[in-house]
């Protein structure tokens, strides 16, 4: 409870208050039900809001990289640009395609959006802002996020369009390869942290983030995770499935209106999810920067609410990903697979072994310098 006094901006206060009030008047079942509904609704809202903010941020940051201003006529500084886009997309006609596989065509966008939603639920946004805390959280996230590829493949298959087909096939090859690397990179940290549960993993990073704890090995894993995460989200330089200059719009060429809106949102959400997993696993999640022994400093850092830390760290990673995206040309499919199978995967395998050695021989930072970390 002392903790709560020092962190007045934390949501924990709100949730525990809500929980106790509800419990005061209702039975266990109703309390849970109401809480579930609230959590679900909040997640959905957060989902939409985050996507809108990300779309706006990307357009703006891109513009700044490209020596221009970006949206600035809708609302102050163009802040309402993506809201306008959403209103339009919602009301846009959904074109029905002749000679397409109707059911699959209709279902594909939902796979995409459901996959990212499911992952979304397992991410710890802050203290007490964590919908599901599995003991195998890392595994769950890896498994569920790879559902999205089904949406892509189905879209490409059912559209009855050759461009979509090529885009989907590229995407399939790309996703399967990079999922390996991403998984391995996370496993490296699981070896270090000794847990798959996000909450435990975060608590373990109070004074030393995983990226520093495993030094060389963690750093490599971090870089590899960023690269392969970037590739999984189909964003440049890995945006082959929707390579604009080659395949018009890739797998979602035939989608219009809201269905396209799903893909559009999911793309940004996936970017967010990758960044937030990286934050959680490598950068201490929602924990503030803390140094052992510096009580005052820690107190000040603690004063900043946990969700601010989380979103701040995620934002940095997203910015990094945008920076990369807007700096490089697109890879070709064989180069892409080369990068994965010739560079990332072997490095990754060696890296896991290295991490195991580090952990077993006590060469991690926490073991080496227990006084500081």
């Amino acid at each position: 409870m002392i903790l709560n006094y020092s962190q007045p901006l934390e949501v924990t206060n709100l949730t525990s208050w809500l929980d106790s009030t509800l419990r005061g008047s209702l039975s266990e079942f109703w309390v849970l039900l109401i809480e579930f509904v609230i959590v679900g609704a909040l997640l959905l809202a957060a989902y939409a809001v985050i996507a809108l903010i990300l779309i706006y941020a990307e357009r703006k940051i891109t513009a700044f990289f490209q020596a221009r201003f970006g949206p600035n006529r809708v609302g102050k500084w163009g802040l309402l640009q993506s809201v306008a886009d959403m209103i339009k997309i919602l009301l846009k006609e959904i074109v029905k395609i002749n000679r397409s596989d109707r059911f699959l065509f209709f279902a594909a966008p939902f796979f995409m959006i459901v996959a990212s939603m499911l992952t979304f639920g397992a991410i710890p946004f802050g203290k007490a802002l964590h919908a599901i805390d599995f003991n195998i959280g890392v595994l769950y996230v890896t498994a569920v996020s790879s559902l999205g590829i089904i949406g892509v493949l189905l879209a490409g298959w059912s559209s009855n369009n050759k461009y979509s087909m090529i885009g989907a096939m590229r995407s399939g090859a790309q996703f399967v390869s990079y999922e390996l690397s991403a998984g391995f990179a996370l496993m490296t940290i699981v070896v270090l942290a000794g847990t798959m549960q996000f909450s435990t993993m975060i608590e373990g990073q109070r004074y030393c983030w995983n990226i520093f704890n495993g030094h060389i090995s963690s750093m490599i894993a971090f870089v590899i995770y960023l690269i392969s995460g970037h590739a999984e989200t189909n964003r440049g330089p890995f945006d082959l499935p929707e390579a604009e200059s080659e395949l018009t719009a890739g797998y979602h060429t035939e989608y219009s209106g809201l269905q396209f809106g799903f893909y559009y949102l999911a793309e940004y959400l996936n970017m967010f999810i990758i960044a937030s997993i990286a934050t959680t696993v490598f950068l201490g999640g929602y924990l503030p920067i803390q140094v052992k022994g510096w009580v005052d400093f820690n107190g000040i850092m603690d004063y900043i609410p946990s969700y601010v830390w989380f979103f701040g760290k995620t934002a940095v990673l997203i910015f990094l990903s945008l920076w990369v995206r807007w700096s490089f040309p697109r890879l070709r499919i064989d180069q892409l697979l080369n990068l994965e199978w010739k560079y990332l995967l072997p490095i990754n395998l060696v890296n896991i072994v290295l991490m195991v050695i580090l952990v077993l021989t006590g060469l991690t930072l926490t073991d080496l310098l227990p006084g500081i970390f």
Partner: protein
Amino acid sequence: MRSIAKYFSGLFIGISSLLKGMSVTWRELWTKKVTQQYPENRDTLVISDRFRCELVMPHDENNEHACTACGICQMNCPNGTIVVTSQMIETEDGKKKKILDTHQWDLGMCTFCNLCVITCPSDAIKFENTYENAVFTRSKLVQKINHEGSKLREKKKEVKPVEAKPVVEAKPVVEKKAVEEVKPEEPKAE
């Protein structure tokens, strides 16, 4: 062994080239943006005087212009954008004289090749740089560039008379056929 060295050198050269590229974008992120913000800068926007956007016939304060309705601009126009219609009147001293009725110019067809302006013997027309011309209706682009009730400015120095050409009936230019019929004709005076 060499292949391993190649593998790693390739890796590092590659990474360093990527970082170099990123450093360029990083610098651009903080440089001054070159964007000029039309329409916010509408009052300060400078467009070169020579820029050709709209054909005008300058009229002076007495609502007089310099066009003698000779039709040379119409003949020189490569695609029939200009249609000059004129009428013959009798002046007070009994001479027959051609005066301008309408000088019709189709903004939606003009290629801004400037031939009409440089061949005009009396400098009656010129291009201006007013660029805000978009409209919803096609017919709005067909403009009569001489003002209502305007007349020829009398000059001391007579402009070289040009043989009269067949007077073209004013036809709405929206019907493209009408324009097509006006084949450019060769002025006889040189």
